[in-house]
């Protein structure tokens, strides 16, 4: 299908009734969403040109160019001076948790500046993923100093106090202390509520972290609502990366609620927006999640290209574990679409790769899925040996005991020569769900 150029569409939009190719263009537009979108953009601009407001705004813009006021310039200088001072003080401390603790920055008056507070919570933000416990020490210092400064009215803006509490909440979330994290987020939100300078963007950060806590702690509906609200604010404020992350969380919440179609739609939007930004990690995640949702709605033809693109991205980024997991998903897709031979090959690669990386439980699940597929394909010869070597590992004693019972049942079936694909799937599903339902006891297949 030949698309119309923007110039051709613009000529048509200028005077549709008199356009020489009116009929051809209109019949093409009826079946071409891409050209319809381009025409809609042209018509939107042409339509807005008829409104007086854009012209008034343009006249305003052309008539005024005064420089920033001295008050603003002074504030910028103060911020820079304090930031430089904070860097000099913190630079030798921030590389070592021990050195930082020994410095007792909360009690040192040199750190009692707004710039130091900002430097501390920004440092904590950077440290959270690698050294969350150290990040917590750093952000606690930020909260403590900001609180003192706010009490003595020497904090330049309460935005910094709110941000310090917010970063504390984020760090606590990373550590898994959800209750403490929520308390810290409550404080941040309450500070923002009372601060006239705080905007929807500041509060959206609180909502986004809270949404994550909700999703992680199985309050999925609440998490979805918060993620939606956060996404809206981030979009208004042009913070596209955070917007996409909030939408990704929303897609995950929808997936967990079982609304796979809506989850796929949300993920499709992320893919569309992440692609031109070359945000490969986000794109890879959205592709993978979207494919998972399509797999569960049995839209296999849609899932396949998404998995393949995600696979290529992990390969490009050198993220081996993600690549192995996508290969695993591709194996599941092969099995579901009847390509058992290809599925067996991929599952074999998957469990071996996971074992090589020491990812014990996932390797066990992949082994069992391979065994199940071999049985379905009528190739039972290697299955007993494959399944005898299944190993799982859980830190929780209770979960470990439950897993052992399930595996004993599997071993008994091997020894009694009564293995079946359904039986293997039954054990596999139980082990797969155990981390999310740790108290559930294993029941033999009926």
């Amino acid at each position: 299908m030949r698309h119309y150029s923007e110039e051709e569409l613009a000529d048509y939009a200028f005077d549709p009734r008199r356009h020489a190719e009116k009929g051809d263009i209109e019949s093409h537009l009826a079946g071409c969403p891409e050209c319809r979108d381009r025409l809609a953009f042209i018509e939107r601009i042409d339509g807005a040109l008829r409104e007086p407001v854009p012209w008034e705004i343009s006249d305003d813009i052309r008539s005024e160019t005064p420089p920033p006021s001295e008050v603003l310039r002074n504030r910028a200088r103060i911020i820079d001076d304090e930031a430089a001072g904070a860097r000099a003080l913190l630079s030798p401390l921030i590389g070592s948790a021990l050195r930082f603790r020994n410095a007792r920055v909360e009690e040192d008056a040199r750190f009692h500046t707004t710039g130091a507070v900002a430097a501390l919570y920004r440092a904590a933000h950077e440290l959270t993923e690698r050294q969350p416990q150290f990040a917590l020490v750093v952000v606690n210092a930020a909260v403590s100093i900001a609180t003192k400064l706010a009490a003595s009215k020497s904090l330049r803006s309460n935005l910094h106090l709110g941000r310090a509490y917010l970063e504390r909440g984020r760090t606590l979330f990373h550590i898994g202390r959800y209750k403490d994290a929520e308390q810290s987020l409550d404080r941040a939100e309450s500070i923002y509520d009372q601060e006239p300078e705080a905007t929807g963007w500041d509060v959206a950060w609180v909502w986004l972290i809270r949404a994550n806590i909700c999703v992680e702690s199985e309050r999925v509906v609440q998490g979805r609502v918060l993620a939606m609200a956060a996404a809206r604010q981030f979009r208004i404020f042009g913070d596209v990366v955070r917007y996409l992350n909030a939408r990704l969380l929303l897609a995950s919440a929808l997936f967990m609620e079982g609304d796979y179609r809506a989850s796929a739609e949300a993920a499709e939007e992320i893919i569309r927006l992440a692609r031109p930004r070359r945000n490969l990690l986000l794109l890879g995640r959205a592709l993978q999640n979207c494919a998972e949702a399509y797999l569960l709605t049995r839209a296999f033809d849609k899932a396949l290209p998404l998995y393949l693109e995600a696979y290529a991205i992990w390969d490009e980024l050198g993220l081996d574990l993600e690549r192995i997991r996508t290969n695993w998903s591709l194996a599941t897709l092969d099995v579901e679409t009847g390509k058992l031979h290809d599925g067996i090959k991929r599952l074999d690669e998957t469990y071996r790769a996971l074992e090589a990386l020491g990812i014990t439980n996932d390797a066990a699940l992949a082994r069992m899925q391979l065994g199940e597929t071999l049985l379905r394909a009528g190739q039972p010869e290697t299955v007993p040996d494959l399944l005898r070597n299944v190993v799982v590992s859980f830190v929780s004693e209770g979960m470990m005991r439950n897993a052992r019972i399930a595996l004993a049942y599997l071993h008994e079936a091997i020894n009694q020569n009564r293995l079946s694909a359904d039986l293997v799937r039954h054990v596999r599903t139980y082990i797969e769900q155990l981390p999310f339902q740790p108290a559930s006891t294993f029941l033999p297949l009926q």
Partner: protein
Amino acid sequence: MRRGGGRDTPLELFLKKLGLPPMQVVAEAQRVARQLGLRVAISRQHFGRIRLGKQRATEEKILLIVATLRSMTGLAVRATDLFLLEPALGGISMSALMGRAEPFRGGTRRVSIFSLPRRFGSWGQFVDDERPSASETLEALYREHAAILRANARRRFNIIEPDDIEGLLNDVFMSYLERQPQAEDVRAFLLGAMNNACKHYLRKRKNEAPLLPEHEHTPDSSTEEEIERWTLFLSLGATLARLGTKCRETLRRYYLHDENPDSIATKLDTTIGYIFQLLSTCRRRAREIYRDLTEPRR
């Protein structure tokens, strides 16, 4: 972490892609360790074993390698870009979603090893501070966005007093400088903050003095439709301000004043064909500027 096998480790892949000789990395690591006052060191043989996945690196050594590669390349590379750090256990469906749900791994930093080098902070390799100075930020942003923020206050919120508008503008820029939010679309961020400031101003004013008739019709900016409409108007206003005089005048006459091309040609003492050509060219130019102003910069 990887324990052998035929494929390159992420660290090895990184070194190869950037053409970094391992010996040079080891030498730089010694310098970085000294600079940071770290007691950890990496020998050539040890680095070789870590690089090839034959030996695990301790947390301190991982951090030293990350710091070294940041120092050598100026890229905000992270430990997870270079080492396979084992994630929590979990079944595939959940791990595929839960791991991707949280917001902090989704930024550009994790993938920054393949993006353009960025300014590297000087205060220790473990902490990024890539923000430009507040003074530089102020001059650049003010020059680019102050006029549209003023227009927004005046046209959207009907705030007439120039001193009040300047006061609001100062507040918005001050809180921007305090935050330095690293948003992709700075104009949208500033406009959001300006809307917020204008609403506070009007609420406060309502309590202090009776509203003038023009204030009674402050648009309800909370609906999606209103947000879209004003985003279009403001972006188009900025677009028109950048058009040349001839284009502005032709488009203004045709679209705003609803003059027909014949009449425009007569008034401008030219041919109707030239006016049609101008209209076509100026509309295209306006769309180009609009896109440039509103689409993400790569």
